[in-house]
């Protein structure tokens, strides 16, 4: 087994509608065998002669050993690239690079873990749950979405988790509200030692803050930010940068794809996403529209 990602032509097995999302299963043994929870794949969309040049970065929901090794992805098909993916049929080929990025760091001891998933990002916490359960950890879920159709995996969470809570903004499933409203109570009830998360940036931000209030470490996947900003997924294009402060207190712009997507929640400067904080290493000292116009 090797740590380096591979580029492969994967065969589509199935594409299914799951609530508001698409779930796609691809046969890609080399990727399945290397995968660790939290990693993602970068897909070329539009076919061989496409005019769409940017790869789509999508987190892996789970890998299975069927057909030599399959990779399952869950995504919202709201933009042209993912809509193209959603239109694939079984036996179609898709150019896939993966597994990419840094995985969730795992506790060495069998501790109590709280896994928080929001929207399609919720899919990525299930592979993690599998690994944690196999290591003897207790696994509790909190799943969130705007409405019932945007909560991914609630039944699976009930089946495999020690507990699971659902929260929707419109109250169409579980409690009405956001993760912010339920997380403190769930942390207390479960006695969590660590909080893991994947989902919208606002969710990760409150998760980190609440975990911090309880003195707990948080590990979050900034998959949504990566999907919105990334172009290559492999760390060469520098389009997916976000500000993270290091042990030394210095803020650096790091790549969501190659230095993430899993980051320590308390290291991310959530309020400054989409900006270059003035105190970041290499930040422009004078603001000038003309600076660095190209490239």
């Amino acid at each position, binding site marked *: 087994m090797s740590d380096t990602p591979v580029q492969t032509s994967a065969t589509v097995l199935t594409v299914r509608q799951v609530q508001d999302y698409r779930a796609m299963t691809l046969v890609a043994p080399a990727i399945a065998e290397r995968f660790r929870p939290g990693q993602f794949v970068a897909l070329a969309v539009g076919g061989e002669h496409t005019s769409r040049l940017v790869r789509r970065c999508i987190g892996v929901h789970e890998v299975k050993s069927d057909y030599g090794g399959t990779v399952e992805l869950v995504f919202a098909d709201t933009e042209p690239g993912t809509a193209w993916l959603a239109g694939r049929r079984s036996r179609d080929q898709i150019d896939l690079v993966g597994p990419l990025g840094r995985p969730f760091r795992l506790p060495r001891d069998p501790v109590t873990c709280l896994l928080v998933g929001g929207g399609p990002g919720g899919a990525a916490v299930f592979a993690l749950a599998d690994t944690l359960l196999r290591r003897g950890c207790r696994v509790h879920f909190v799943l969130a979405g705007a409405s019932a159709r945007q909560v991914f995996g609630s039944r699976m969470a009930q089946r495999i988790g020690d507990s699971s809570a659902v929260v929707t903004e419109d109250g169409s499933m579980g409690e009405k509200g956001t993760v912010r409203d339920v997380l403190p109570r769930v942390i207390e009830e479960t006695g969590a030692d660590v909080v893991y998360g994947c989902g919208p940036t606002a969710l990760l931000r409150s998760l980190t803050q609440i975990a911090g209030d309880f003195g707990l470490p948080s590990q979050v996947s900034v998959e949504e930010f990566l999907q919105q*900003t990334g172009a290559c997924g492999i760390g060469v294009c520098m389009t997916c*940068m976000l500000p993270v402060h290091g042990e030394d207190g210095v803020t650096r712009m790091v790549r969501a794809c190659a230095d993430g997507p899993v980051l320590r929640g308390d290291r991310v400067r959530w309020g400054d996403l989409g900006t*270059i904080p003035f105190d970041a290493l290499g930040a422009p000292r004078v603001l000038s529209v003309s600076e660095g116009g190209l490239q």
Partner: protein
Amino acid sequence: MSERVTTTLGPLELPNPVLTASGCGGTGRELAQFFDLTRLGAFVTTSVMAQARAGRPTPRVTETPSGLLTAMGLPGPGVETFLERDLPWLIEQEVRTIVSVAGSSVEEYGDLARRLRNVPGVAAIEVNVACPNVEDRGRMFGWHPAAAASVVRAVRAHARPGLPVFAKLAPDVTDIVTIALACVDAGADGLTLINTMDAMAIDPQTLRPALTGVSGGLSGPAVRPVAVRCVYQVHAALPTTPIIGVGGISTGLDALEFILAGASAVAVGTALFHDPAAGPRVLRELEEALAARRIGRLADAVGLAHKPAGYVPPQVRPQEPEKEKL
């Protein structure tokens, strides 16, 4: 590797003509996960500047028809970290490395060339003149023959004598030939054509410019016809000056197009984001394309499009395609 594809760029000899384009191959380590970088003709680094730069805020990129629009703000670690961390790795792996330099003043360019002077293992310097000149109200060096020439002259003066210097030009100028001439007069051994073009997209949802930087650099297949035109015009005016063709190359036939226009080497940029292994693939496809046209040596194809109609390049017999050793 076959001798069919060896190429010379003035004083620089390369086993094959396929390079990476500056700013598109990361530090090299990322691409090395997908193929052996020594299979490239050369690796061109991201433009190095004197100081570490975080670049522009996101979003820095937007997908456009057959292209990419980026406004990165030249992010990079600065020359110090580059010399300590990135360049030694490339040299250790024996990757032929062309270092791209960029500055916001003539002095900064000269300074960078001096810092590279005693670094062994650098194959050439590429001068990115598509940089805003802070001493001239942020107008790009590459837009004016005199300004472009001044940075080339500064690099030439401080670079190790004999180290090849290439000037990389922007295409969106009134007359690229004038700028090419000025750079060659100032001591450039060759030219890299082209850098990105200033362009813009507006988001119909937000009703605002799609990029934080408002306008940005257009790259990808969308700019290829512009790049081919630039190579053709410059080769016609300066037939002995070596040219590295860049702009929207994603297949071997794209590369051949640049070579026919007058390029002796080609660089793959945006295509790497789509296909990390594009470099070796383009090379393989180019070799096949030459063989299919019975062209024995790459050099026989350079500038062929300038020849009168009916001209037949030296042909190899199909039975012995590789046996062209004159």
